């Protein structure tokens, strides 16, 4: 790369904040362009502060970064984690073998052909010993 192509850009010390893709800047234009680029950002900040007045001054503060370091789903313990994983696995098996359920008039069904009956989550009142 030849040195002639290296050029510095200084717009109040900051990179150009306006215009799509282009990074050439000229003296007089830069000040107004910079101000126009700033106003949207400040307006956005005002919007945010209006919505969340308790938002702290320094976004890059240690609380913010600490949250970033802690990324990852936290569980109460390993039992909680394994339960959650099991729940996810069950959710992914709703349609296991639709063919098994279709036993219609072709042949006399055998115990193997019949679909398994899942045990009820809610026990019957009779089973629980309760009177009707």
């Amino acid at each position: 790369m030849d040195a002639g192509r290296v050029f510095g850009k200084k717009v109040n010390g900051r990179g150009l904040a306006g215009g799509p893709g282009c990074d050439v800047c000229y003296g007089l234009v830069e000040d107004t362009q910079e101000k126009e680029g700033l106003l949207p950002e400040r307006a956005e900040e005002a919007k945010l502060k209006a919505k969340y007045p308790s938002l702290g001054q320094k976004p890059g503060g240690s609380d913010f970064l600490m949250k970033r370091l802690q990324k990852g789903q936290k569980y109460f313990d390993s039992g909680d984690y394994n339960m959650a994983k099991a729940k996810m696995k069950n959710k992914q098996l709703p349609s296991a073998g639709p063919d098994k359920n279709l036993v219609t008039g072709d042949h006399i069904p055998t115990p193997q052909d019949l679909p398994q009956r899942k045990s009820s989550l809610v026990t019957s009142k009779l089973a629980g010993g309760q009177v009707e």
Partner: protein
Amino acid sequence: CCCGRELFSWRLHSDIISTVEFNYSGDLLATGDKGGRVVIFQREQENKSRPHSRGEYNVYSTFQSHEPEFDYLKSLEIEEKINKIRWLPQQNAAHFLLSTNDKTIKLWKISERDKRAEGYNLKDEDGRLRDPFRITALRVPILKPMDLMVEASPRRIFANAHTYHINSISVNSDHETYLSADDLRINLWHLEITDRSFNIVDIKPANMEELTEVITAAEFHPHQCNVFVYSSSKGTIRLCDMRSSALCDRHSKFFEEPEDPSSRSFFSEIISSISDVKFSHSGRYMMTRDYLSVKVWDLNMESRPVETHQVHEYLRSKLCSLYENDCIFDKFECCWNGSDSAIMTGSYNNFFRMFDRDTRRDVTLEASRESSKPRASLKPRKVCTGGKRKKDEISVDSLDFNKKILHTAWHPADNVIAVAATNNLYIFQDKIN
């Protein structure tokens, strides 16, 4: 370089793609996904009977690299998502790559098997052991060709060296060592040794309340094996020389663009956070990606970048909602082309941007099935920033912020690019006339 792109292939991943990387020759393209899987594509060789298949990338190998784990001490789930894949330079018939999730780096060997031995003495063709008393003659097994089988096997597992989440790995030009970086530390490994690594950067403060910045990316220099850089969440880059001291907490060079204090806002630091840093192939420059722009730095000048390219400046007036929906924290990657004359990075709405450094032209393209037809040129896209929206333009408010292109890769020599859009992998090539 940017115009005349045509869609060559499109592949659907089963999960969100989290990393894309060409190998040194560009014949192999590796992708990692959120489910811990690695899929490697191989470029088809020129074939006279199927001229249109030249350059197509087809699946070469698929394997499960990482599984979800549970950190019992902290009761935290360790995601199996592949954060980065880096290839090793090829030294023999097999291919090697490093893949990493948040905590563990693995070295994988991908090898081909296209021969099988037949005519064993001690066992039958189906593998059953023969009765030794019935063996009356000896024969030499012969090698017979078989259907190509590509096997992936884990050769090294580099674990338990990172308290925080690994964001980068980088193979050194010495081909013997590599670095891994997490939010606060960088470790140096030898590819042969898994039970220890050297800590070369540690920015963890004694009191965590004093934490002001984290490491966001790190990379070795492409030619100088003693030099590496790391970027921070405050928009700074530090270049370190491993010859100067064992612990590189003190940088050799410090790159930061001076900021005008009067332009500072709540968002300034967040959008200045560097999400990716990449050396040019020449080793003379490096490129950094922050939320709104891509900057090219000359390693000889620390005071400011030599180029700044706006990726999606129109988002500056949307920062409030982008902060609320967390998009402002999206980590976009960037890449150079083989000759360092062009750079590419992703944006939202499945848009990606390419900047030609020589002609100073840039273009916005879209990676989607609707807008891409095989063998047709990609149409440049334009975002309307205000006022009257022209036909074919998209207004900023219509952009889909769920369709983000975070990962892109450029072939090391040819004008072939790989773009990951959620769970779709697009491969574009220059038109062959």
